[in-house]
């Protein structure tokens, strides 16, 4: 899955981010680029800084909500090639 390094960076630092609970973090590789109050704001900064390069956005939660589907759908981990 893409963005594995960014997810690792998130998990590595999460315990230190209690003051940022509920904010959105922007991560590129191992670099934590900042915290933002809304999804719109973090996307705006992410696209400004990195344009079409991969970057990672996540809402910071010490105890993250697990999302649920009642249907037995398999979510994709990568988009199939055209």
């Amino acid at each position, binding site marked *: *899955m*893409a*963005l594995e390094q960014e*997810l690792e960076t998130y998990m590595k630092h999460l315990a230190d981010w209690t003051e940022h609970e509920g904010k959105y973090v922007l991560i590129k590789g191992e670099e934590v680029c900042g915290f933002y109050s809304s*999804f*719109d704001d973090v*996307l*705006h900064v*992410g*696209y*400004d800084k990195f*344009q*079409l390069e*991969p*970057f*990672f*956005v*996540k809402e910071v939660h010490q105890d*993250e*909500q*697990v*999302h*649920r*589907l*009642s*249907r*037995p*759908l*398999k*979510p*994709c*981990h*990568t*988009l*199939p090639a*055209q």
Partner: protein
Amino acid sequence: MPHFTRPITQKGPLLKVEIGVSDELQRLYRLLNFPIPRPLFVDGLVDTGASITGIDTVVARALDLTSRGTIPMVTPSTGGQAVQVPLYDVSLAIPPGNAGELPYRVANLSVFASDELGGEGYPYHVLVGRDVLSRCLLVYNGQQGTYTLAF
């Protein structure tokens, strides 16, 4: 409050949904003078059993989407275990029921993708989950066989 009432079909409460690249990505495409992928107007299902909205991978590919994050997700197909699932940023609009009313639009929305949507088992391309429905009023009238969505 704009609203519409539709029949509940055999496939469930269906609606038309417009899915495009997120407004922030559109802004970047304009800055770079790149063409903006045309939004797709597809069938969606109102799904109160989904905590987050999902799209068909065909839609994701047509919009040339790139993952921008992940969430943990459990479905009956994940064996009870939460798996990290990529998310894609899109814009979503639900057309109003009457001329002159504004659509319900989310400029920047995180969604997951599944290649099982749009197939025989799931003949619609969007699952409209509770993240989108949280800003709406939904009335399911089983006796009349209709549902009403207000936003």
